[in-house]
């Protein structure tokens, strides 16, 4: 086994936070490499502290290492000081598990969770000693594969990747591995051959096998070169989360990371239907983990890791059937001392605050709500159907139960937004502070504002993003107004970064050279405000004859080919278009978990359905269901089965 450790340990006292590079986590696997086993290096292209907790990467790490024909190790983007040290000493990117050089793996597999990480992908490939462009790689070089939410529009990365994988990875990773193991066993000769093999795996897109045509300066089509290659690549969806209780041995790092706690995914998918939310659109349908399995994963995980905090993760976690019982049982878990439970994603209603009160018995530090838009009108446009009553009763409930600080998340730059909507944000905040005065001497509300970025496979994919100047003007409006509001603090995300995120999220292959230029001019870690440099991007765009006006700010026409039309998240294009038209008319859409199916395509197209344990929506607010849920919401739905067997939970809808 080749390890770079003896070289690395001599340079680690020259870099910040050397524990980023040592591995040694509890749960780490030291795999035995073998010519019959495809060797994966799973890379999160951000710092170790950000990347280590990523559950997707940890799930694949375990599933691959359980296979007899695969080994997997991990790597993270070295911080800029370490990258310099590695280049100065002629050392390559390495795995943290055994400190094996990256180029000795058969595949570099990246999890791409954010567009601004794209230049770090190139940085990691280059540090590995592999040509950044796919066309320049030889059969001796590893393959480069990407997955994660950004893989739904991988066109800007087409020049640099061998394949992109759409959707849930649990099943497809094994199918990919069979192709890779066979390729390796045959001597890893021809890259085209393995590309064809990968393209035959459902969910895998191989950009080099597709031709891109333009009509003038507009994309015309992306079509396969070869008749054997699918015209449309469909995403993969795991039908039942109960079959995949991963990670079984969550990694416990030796050094502090973000989300440094046990994380248990309680369900995947969300059908609240918020129109700005890509995650809610591409991860459909809702698949709940059986409550018993959640309890077991929490209890075993706490015991094994020694963590005193567990997060129940999903989108809008309070929508989990029987969430209060699961939370209560986690808190009462014996033998673990003082356990705290956190729910990182919460709806806005009083019921949710009740759960929060239950879990934050000791430390009532702060509570976060995300109304997203300042007026009811705009919230119907984005289908985030929180009434003002929902918000105020949630806030009142929180203040009355001991919280003194609230954080409210909003987006600016949403479709149809007027200045009245923008300023409505502060009106909501002002009223929240006012409610708080009844309970505290100086209640405070932090308003956090981000610029809206339209994403592929959402109803807003046709929307021309607000210009940077417009976003700055809106932030300025808020800033001026917030000065006069006591108890309201305003924070905002850099509009410049939102624009570049928007550029990459809906771009086509013409962005490849732009990304490469930005990277080669030192533009790495663009997610980090201290490294983000908008000038690198705008000058690279100009260099390649592209403009933000055309790429980012322009509304797309209904019949315009989109760069991701040859990929599918299951959602029918006409469903998305109809939802976009409905949005513009302010027509809401109910949550199909509890109401009849409207055939978005995510279930019907793949022959799967929601897996939820309860047929009734949770008590609390009106968000998303359009129902009066104060009574616990007896909504008529058709139950297919109702069984206590954990493998056949009630299935609703379809």
């Amino acid at each position, binding site marked *: 086994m080749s390890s770079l*450790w*003896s070289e690395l*340990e001599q340079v*680690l*006292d020259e870099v910040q936070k*050397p*524990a980023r*590079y*040592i*591995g*040694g986590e*509890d749960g780490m696997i030291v795999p035995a490499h073998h010519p019959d086993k495809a060797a994966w290096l799973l890379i999160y292209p951000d710092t170790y502290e950000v990347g280590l907790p990523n559950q997707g990467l940890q799930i694949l790490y375990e599933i691959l290492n359980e296979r007899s024909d695969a080994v997997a190790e991990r790597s993270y983007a070295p911080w800029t000081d370490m990258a310099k040290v590695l280049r100065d000493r002629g050392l390559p990117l390495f795995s943290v598990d055994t400190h094996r050089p990256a180029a000795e793996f058969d595949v570099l597999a990246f999890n791409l969770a954010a567009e601004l990480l794209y230049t770090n992908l190139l940085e990691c490939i280059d540090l590995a000693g592999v040509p950044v462009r796919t066309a320049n790689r030889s059969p001796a070089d590893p393959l480069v594969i990407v997955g994660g939410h950004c893989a739904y529009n991988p066109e800007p990365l087409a020049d640099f990747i061998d394949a992109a994988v759409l959707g849930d990875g649990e099943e497809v990773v094994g199918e990919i591995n069979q192709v890779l193991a066979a390729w390796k066993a045959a001597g890893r000769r021809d890259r085209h051959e393995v590309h064809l093999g990968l393209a035959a795996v459902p969910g895998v897109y191989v950009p080099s096998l597709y031709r891109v045509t333009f009509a003038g300066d507009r994309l015309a089509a992306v079509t396969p070169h070869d008749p054997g290659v699918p015209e449309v690549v469909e995403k993969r969806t795991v039908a039942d989360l109960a079959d995949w209780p991963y990670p079984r041995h969550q990694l*416990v790092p*030796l*050094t*502090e990371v973000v989300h440094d706690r046990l994380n248990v995914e309680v369900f995947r998918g969300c059908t609240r239907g918020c129109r700005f939310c890509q995650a809610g659109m591409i991860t459909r349908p809702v698949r709940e983990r059986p409550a018993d399995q959640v309890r077991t994963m929490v209890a075993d995980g706490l*015991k*094994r*890791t*020694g*963590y*005193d905090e567990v997060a129940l993760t999903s989108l809008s976690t309070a929508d989990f059937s029987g969430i209060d019982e699961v939370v209560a049982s986690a808190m009462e878990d014996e*033998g*673990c*001392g*003082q356990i705290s439970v956190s729910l990182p994603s919460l709806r806005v209603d009083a019921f949710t605050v009740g759960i929060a009160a239950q879990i934050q018995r*000791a*430390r009532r530090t702060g509570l976060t709500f995300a109304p997203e838009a300042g007026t009811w009108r705009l919230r119907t446009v984005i289908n985030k159907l929180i009434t003002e009553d929902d918000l105020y009763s949630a806030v009142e409930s929180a203040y009355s139960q001991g919280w003194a600080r609230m954080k409210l998340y909003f987006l600016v730059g949403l479709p149809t937004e007027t200045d009245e909507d923008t300023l409505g944000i502060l009106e909501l905040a002002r009223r929240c502070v006012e409610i708080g005065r009844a309970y505290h001497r100086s209640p405070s509300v932090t308003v956090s504002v981000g610029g809206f970025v339209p994403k592929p496979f959402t109803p807003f994919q046709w929307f021309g993003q607000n210009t940077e100047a417009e976003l700055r003007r809106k932030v300025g409006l808020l800033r001026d107004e917030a000065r006069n509001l006591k108890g309201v603090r305003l924070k905002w995300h850099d509009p410049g970064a939102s624009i570049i995120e928007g550029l990459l999220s809906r771009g086509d292959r013409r962005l490849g050279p732009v990304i490469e230029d930005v990277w080669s001019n030192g533009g790495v870690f663009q997610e980090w405000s201290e490294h983000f440099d908008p000038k690198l991007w705008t000058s690279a765009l100009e260099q390649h004859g592209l403009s933000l006006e055309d790429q980012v700010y322009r509304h797309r026409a209904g019949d315009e080919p989109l760069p991701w039309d040859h990929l599918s998240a299951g959602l029918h294009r006409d469903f998305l278009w109809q939802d976009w038209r409905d949005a513009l008319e302010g027509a809401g859409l109910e949550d199909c978990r509890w109401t009849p199916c409207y055939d978005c395509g995510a279930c019907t197209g793949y022959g799967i359905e929601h897996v939820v344990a309860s047929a009734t929506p949770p008590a609390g607010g009106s968000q998303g269901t359009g129902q009066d849920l104060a009574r616990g919401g007896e909504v008529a739905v058709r139950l297919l089965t109702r069984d206590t067997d954990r493998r056949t939970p009630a299935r609703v809808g379809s």
Partner: protein
Amino acid sequence: MTTLRVRFGKCGKVRFTSHRDVARIWERALRRAEINVAYTQGFSPRPRVSFGLALATGHESQAEYLDVDLVDEPVGNHSVWAAELGERLDRVLPEGIDVLATTTVDRSTDSLQQAVESCTWSIEINGVDTIQATRWVEDLLSREEIVVERERKGRVVSEDVRPQVLALGVTGATEHGVRLLADLGTQPRALRPVELLAAIDPPLRARSVRRMHQWMTQGSERIEPLPADAAPGALAEVRA
């Protein structure tokens, strides 16, 4: 309430974790070993664990200490009970952090940080032979004062650390250089091995640094807060 004192080593890859990281590792280990730790009272309860002198990130040690207050009283023979807890902890600690000894201590004694007066360090330096190293050491010891620059509350101050150089000697050659042994004072502020090396002209860079002992005074005797029978052989092996 009982206080358990643990002496542990920190060697190998894990030496690159920070003092704060090590504290978190111990908190998790205590929970995993299902040891009933007492918590502080108040708004945000913390486990009652106190660590001795901080060890610089990147340095190894075979003489780290922590005191932890336990809810449970010892059962039977105190040293057997303490040893059993030590074994339970050792099983759940990461590779490179090893329990070397355990005992129960009287809570009324001074905290480790207050009681410890000096440390013995083993320092390896590459690219130097014993003759040259001995000359440097003699030169350093003959100086009346050794002034180092330190950052203190954001300001750079010059301090004479000569009184804290209690002993310094070359103990032998290594494969690529020499090994020094140094006893350095810790009161009122600890003299760090790297500060000492920086005071040598030209400044030296350590290949590796390991804390061998921490010392306190009892009567006229120099004693360790908790002696370990011997530095375990395992410590040498984990250095990959």
